[in-house]
Each structure stands twice: as C-alpha cells, then as structure tokens.
C-alpha cells in the first residue's frame, strides 16, 4: 500500500471542466491533510483541444509535479492514448466507456483498467452530461478508499463560490456518489494507492500568482493596472476581487501601454503601484519601462513568461524572456530583475520588489512563468514571510520650506535623490523623460549628461550591495552543482532528493535576483564546484549567457528544455546521471 503518496491525473476535452475538477481534487487532498503540487495543461481555446490536470500528493512537501501517474482518469480517447506512457506499472486507469476504449495490450497486465460510463452516470443522477467531471471526482475517491466526505465538501464549496443554485451542488454530489459507488463495485481488490485523511495542519493552497498578488497587497500595493494576458491574468482577477475590501484601485486598461503608464503615474504620486503581463504585453511596455528608469519612478512590473516568439504557445510554460527583460527599452539604465522560484518566494519577493522600487526609485521586474504562476502548491502560512516595509526617501513639506531650492535629481553619494510628491508645497519640479539636470530641466550639455548617467548608475551599485546573495542548497562537496533561476527550482529540489536516495551528491544555486547580478557569489560557487550545469527552460541558455557576461565564466553543461513544458524531476535525474 502506498498511502497518501500518489500522482493523480485527469484528461479530457476543453469544455469538460478539467481545470475546475482538478482544482477541486487538489483542494480535497489539502483538506485531507496532505501536501499537494498541481499542474495543468490546456490549449489556448475555450472549447475543443485536450486538457489535463495532474496532482501530486504526499504527506511531505511536494516541490514540483511528479511522475509517473498512479491514477489516470481518461474522459475521452485522447486522454487514454496520450497518457498511457506516463503511467506507473501498477497504475489505475479509469476510462470513459461512453466515448473511449482501451484496446488489448494498451495497458500492462499489472495495471488496473476500469471502464466507467461517466456521462450515463451523470445523467442518471439527475445532473447534466457536463457533470461527467464530478462523476470522475467521485470515482477517484472510490479508488482512494477515503469515503466521499471531502469530495462532497469541495463540490459544495465550488458551487457556492460560483454562486450557483444549491440544487446544482446537490445533483453534482449525487453524480460524484454514483462514480464512487460504481468504482467501489468494480474494484476487485483494495486500491494500492490510498488516502488516509489526517488532521489538517492549517496549510493553504496557493498558485504562484495568488501568492504574488497577496504579497503585493500585504506590502501596501493599492494600485494595480493591467490588461489581461495569460498567464498573468489571475493577478488582475485577485486584485479586482479584493479591491473593495482592501481599498485598492484596480484598472483594466485599454492596453499594456496604458497599464504601465497608469502604474507609473501612480508610483510618481507616492502610491505603491504594479502592473502584470506576459512577454507580448511587456514588449508593449518597454518604452515606458525606460521612462520609469529615466524619470526615476518606482513601479513594479510582473512578467509571467510563456513560450514564444510572438503569440507562441499562450497557455504553456517557458523561461525565454530573461535576456529581453534584462535589456528591454532603449539605452541603459539601472533596473532590478528578480525571479521567485516557488509559491513562498513569490509571496516574499514581491514585497521586496516594492521596497527596492521605492528605495531606488526604479522599475523592478518580477519574472514569473506559466508553471509557477498557475500551479498550486500547499503551503504552511508560517512559511509566507512578511518583509518590513521601507518607503525610500521622500522629503517633507517642512524640509521643503526650510530649503526652498529643491533639486529633484540632486546628485548624491548613492545616486538616490529624495522625492517630492505631487501636492507637496515647495516641491515643484519637472519629472523629465528628457535627459535633465538636477532640477529636472531638459539638459543636453555633455558634462551634465555624463554626470546624470553616472548618478543613475550609482543607484545600481547601491542596489547590488543591498540585494541578498544566493545560497547553495543541497549537498556539500557535491559531484555536480546546478545553477538555475525561476520556477525550475521545484523540479531541481525534487531531482536532488531523488539523486540523493540513489547515492549522488548534487547541490544547486537558484539565482533569484538576476539583476544586479551576484557576480562575486557566482564566481565563488564556480571556484568550489566540481562541475557546473545550468538548467533553464529555454533554447539558448539565457542565464548562462548573462552569467558569462557578468563573470566571464561558463558552465560545463547546459540542461535546456524548450518544448513548452516544465522540467520534470525524473527527466532531470536521467539527464544528470548521464553527466556524472
């Protein structure tokens, strides 16, 4: 028996409610006291196409989605055909006899195949055909042998959150019960994968975007302007829903140019402001990004990546925008670029982003990707760290009265010039996107130009001193050191643990603050590492290139993946073993 340790997957057509039922399954596992990590694949369509949702369940923390699949629910033929290779030797396959079949020899004799008339059971329960997904939820609980209570709970929760009529929940619970009973009758022996409900240790379940949005709200970000773009959109949804309760101003603007423009206007006034988009929207924002750099306005920009170029694969994942973000907008100006690696970091780092933006009066780009933005992870609320709020230097009206000759861009030791905010008596100035002098007036004198460029770059040096250096995680005296950034962290954590169990010592360095780059720390890591491999979800090794630019060093290996899918731990394990 593998109690509380299994990977569940459901697949079906877009429109079958795969994402909705997957999220309900995740939540039910959380309520069963388990740790959870989930991952959904779906095309950029509302109807048609193939959707999947997989949930990895364990009593101990899960850092990335796990394979192989132990329980597969296939709501159509594609779900059987596409995922049969992902199954464990002793997996359970629940397939839809209303529209699919499992041919002879498709599954191994050690696997258990159960045909279920999902749609027929839904209709018989008084629900509609679309409730095939709730039948599947019940059937899954039948396999896990944990009773129906939690399934019932999440179904009722789901329909109450959607503000559906109470009767909708009642018939869906009946549909789930029908699936549960059907499986119970079919199952000849107790399931190998089972769920034992444990007392709930108070964990919650958050996607990266949820954690980021709440971290921002906690940090006092009360202005959010955005234009919807997958996979950043759910940040807009969270902010919009919470606007009345937390006194937020949320503007769905006409485009991304306006989104960042509004955020810059608000940041200029002294409000903590943010926008969020994906690569395409960020491309539209780039001219304004430079404006924030030149005018020295604090603003936080979230860029949740998806595979490109151009429209690319809107609902899939990748880490292909790093170099673009590092050099976005014409010319040169200091910027802070950070990339959280998991849900907890998303919550924490976004708070730092606001502190850094205001302290250095600079744009801060927070890089996410579809995998981290959309995957849910169970977290212990005590692991969601709150950062002390630091607002940066702002003058007061009294100070302005005492020294009437206010210079907005006064050249200081660290390049930071205290801000006067609009409305303050005596602080009038030009906030200027033209090159300017200390007063803010447009200025094209050679010496002044060079001086102001140097002033802005003094801030970069100050930022670099403040930003925490990354730390090596995992085994000491490792055979191989992995260097990575962003969401790849989770699969690496899983892979390092798996390799440890197989007797291999591997460690890793996650570079969370990508710019300014922690060059000294990285040099030191190279000095002590036996071999170094960079792991990135892109074609060309963008972090490797940036690292080389900053340190002159190159890794021994690059482990790259650019098929729109995240790294899976088992793949990394196989690749790493070849390198050892």
């Amino acid at each position, binding site marked *: 028996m593998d109690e509380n340790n299994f990977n569940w997957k459901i697949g079906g057509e877009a429109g079958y409610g795969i994402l909705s039922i997957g999220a309900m399954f995740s939540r039910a596992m959380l309520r069963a006291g388990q740790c959870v990590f989930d991952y959904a694949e779906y095309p950029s369509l509302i109807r048609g196409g193939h959707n999947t949702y997989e949930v990895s369940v364990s009593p101990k923390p899960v850092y990335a989605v796990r394979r192989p699949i132990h329980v597969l629910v296939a709501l159509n033929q594609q779900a059987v055909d596409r995922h049969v290779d992902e199954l464990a030797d002793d997996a359970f396959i629940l397939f839809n006899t209303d529209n699919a079949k499992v041919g002879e020899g498709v599954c191994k004799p050690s696997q258990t195949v159960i045909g279920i008339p999902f749609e027929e059971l839904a209709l018989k329960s008084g629900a509609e055909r679309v409730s095939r997904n709730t039948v599947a939820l019940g059937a899954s609980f039948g396999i896990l042998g944990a009773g129906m209570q939690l399934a019932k709970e999440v179904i009722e929760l789901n329909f109450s959150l959607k503000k559906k009529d109470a009767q909708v929940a009642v018939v869906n619970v009946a549909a789930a019960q029908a699936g549960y009973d059907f499986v119970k009758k079919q199952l000849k022996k107790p399931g190998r994968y089972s769920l034992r409900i444990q007392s709930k240790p108070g964990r919650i379940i958050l996607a990266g975007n949820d954690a980021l949005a709440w971290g921002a709200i906690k940090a006092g970000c009360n202005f959010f302007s955005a234009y919807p773009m997958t996979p950043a959109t759910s940040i807009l949804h969270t902010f919009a829903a919470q606007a009345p309760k937390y006194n937020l101003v949320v503007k769905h603007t*006409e485009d991304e140019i*306006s989104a960042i423009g509004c955020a810059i*206007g608000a940041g200029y006034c002294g409000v903590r402001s943010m926008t969020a988009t994906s690569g395409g929207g960020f491309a539209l924002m780039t001219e*304004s990004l430079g404006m924030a750099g030149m*005018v020295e306005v604090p603003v936080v920009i979230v860029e949740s990546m998806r595979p490109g170029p151009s429209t690319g694969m809107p609902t899939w994942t990748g880490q292909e925008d790093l170099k673009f973000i590092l050099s976005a907008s014409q010319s040169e100006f200091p910027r802070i670029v950070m990339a959280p690696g998991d849900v907890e970091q998303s919550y924490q780092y976004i708070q730092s982003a606001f502190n850094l933006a205001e302290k250095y009066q600079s744009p801060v780009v927070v890089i996410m990707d579809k995998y981290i933005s959309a995957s849910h992870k169970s977290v212990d609320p005590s692991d969601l760290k709150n950062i002390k709020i630091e607002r940066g230097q702002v003058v007061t009206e009294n100070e302005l009265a005492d020294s009437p000759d206010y210079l907005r861009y006064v050249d200081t030791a660290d390049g930071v010039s205290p801000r006067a905010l*609009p409305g303050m008596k005596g602080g009038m100035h030009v906030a200027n996107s033209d090159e300017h002098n200390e007063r*803010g007036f447009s200025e094209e004198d050679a010496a002044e130009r060079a001086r102001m460029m140097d002033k802005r770059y003094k801030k970069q040096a100050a930022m670099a001193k403040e930003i925490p250096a990354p730390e090596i995680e995992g085994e000491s005296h490792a055979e191989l050191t992995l260097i990575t950034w962003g969401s790849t962290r989770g699969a690496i954590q899983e892979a390092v643990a798996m390799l440890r169990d197989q007797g291999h010592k591997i460690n890793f360095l996650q570079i969370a603050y990508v710019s300014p780059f922690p060059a000294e720390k990285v040099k030191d890591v190279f000095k002590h590492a036996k071999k170094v491999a960079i792991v990135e979800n892109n074609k060309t090794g963008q972090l490797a290139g940036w690292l080389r630019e900053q340190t002159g060093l190159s890794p021994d290996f690059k482990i790259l993946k650019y098929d729109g899918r995240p790294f899976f731990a088992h793949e990394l394990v196989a690749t790493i073993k070849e390198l050892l």
Partner: protein
Amino acid sequence: MLNQKDYTSSYTPTWCPGCGNFSIYPATKMALAQLGIEPHRVAMVFDIGCSSNGSNFYHLYSFHSIHGRALPVAEGVKLANHSLHVIADSGDGGAYGEGISHFVHSCRSNIDMTYLVHDNHLYSLTKGQASPTSNRGMKTKSTPYGIIDQSFNPLATAIINGATFVAQAFSADIPGMTEIIKQAIQHRGFAFVNILQLCPTFNKINTLDWYKQRVYKLSEAGHDSGNYTQAVTAATQPSEKLPLGILYQIHKPTYEEGIPSLSQMPLVQRSVDRIDITESLKTYN
C-alpha cells in the same frame, strides 16, 4: 492673488517666434491663477513635441512623459491623488496619432481631468510632416504629393465617446482661450479642449488669415452646449467652418466616483502599514 509668474519656471521658452504656444502657455497659467489653484496642487503631464517642451517652462508638478502617453500617466496621477488638479497636455501628433487609443478610452472613462491638445495640424518638432488633423491634399515633407487620408475629427470623436466637456479654442484669441481653459479645469469629468494653433515656421497653409476666414464663436451662434445633436452637428461641419467655444458639456459621474476605495480619501493618503490579510489567506484552505 496668484498670477502668471507663480506658474512660470526659470527656463526660457524655446518655441519659434510667432508660435501659437506663446499664447496657449500664458492662457493656461492665467486660467490657473484666476481659479486660485496653487501651483503645487497642479500636476501637468506632457507628451513629446513642441508643445510638450513646455513641461520645462511651467512651475508646478510637471511630468514630461513619452510620445502619445500623457493620458495614461495623467490617469495614474489622478487615481493616486484625486485631490490634485490634473492636466494632460499634448500635440495633435501625440494625441491623435500615437496616443489615439488613450484619448478614446479617457473620454469613455470620464475621469476628472483636463486634456489640452495643441492642434497645429502638423508634426513640427520633427520639422513638418503630416499629422492626423492635417487637411486632405496638404503637401508636407512626408506627403510631398498631398495627403490621401481624410483628416481626423477630434471634437466629434470626443463627443460620441463620452467626454462630458468638449471645446475648441484658437491660439490667436487669448481671452477666449483662457475662458475655455478655465471652464475645462472647473468641469468635473473628462474635459477636452482642442486648441487650433498657429505654426508659422512649418505650416504655411493653416495661417492666421486661413483661420480668420473660418472660425466663429458658438456663443454668438445660439449654440446649446447641453444639446447632443447640436454638438455633433457643430463638430461635423465642413472644415470651412471652425466653431470656437464649448460644443458640449453635460454632467455625469466621474471615473473616480465609481471607485469605492476613493470615496474617503486620496489613495496616496492610505497607510500601507499593518495591512492584515490573515483571514483572506485562510479562505485558500
């Protein structure tokens, strides 16, 4: 008593002799002074262009943004601190070319700000190319054989898209322009003023004489600015007739009034300390 000097910076204006900006600039300052709005209570967001070089010449909270994007920045300013008087200031290129989408959507939003567009029918800082409001057939450096396009109609666009104050002024009529700008600033909602502006350096077609033959005052023509049909009619006349004055003014709730979070105080005054999200996080269980 406030006067023009209170809004005047130490930077000497760099416009060409005879430029209409030399009239729009004092008219704007006089409007502010006559309304008794102190300089630190004004945030003025500029585009890029000849008119927007004025960002250096005003003594108030001046923001020199990028081409076409004055409105988004101004909107962010207004929503962050709606106690400020916010003026967005652009030329016809930035307003009707690069920034046209922001113009239409700001009209829809009815956000409480003033939008002054210096409309000289030409791109002048880049030395004389066709603008969206250049007349059809006009020969410019970018259209040496004549403009093919129909010229853009800013007044009608503003009226039909929900602006609650739509006016046209003429840079050669400083008193009339001052009065219109005053009323625009006083208006609660999106107040748009298209200012017909002379560019003696590059625009040799739309000259003072050309305008004098075409402009007329709405106030002397029995125009009812509360009447939508009359406003649209006045805005869509052939270019031989150019109305001056307020074409349209109605009162509707502003964008900020639709945001509950702004009902008690400007956003910037809200404390960011001790925001408690504990209970909200518990719902993710």
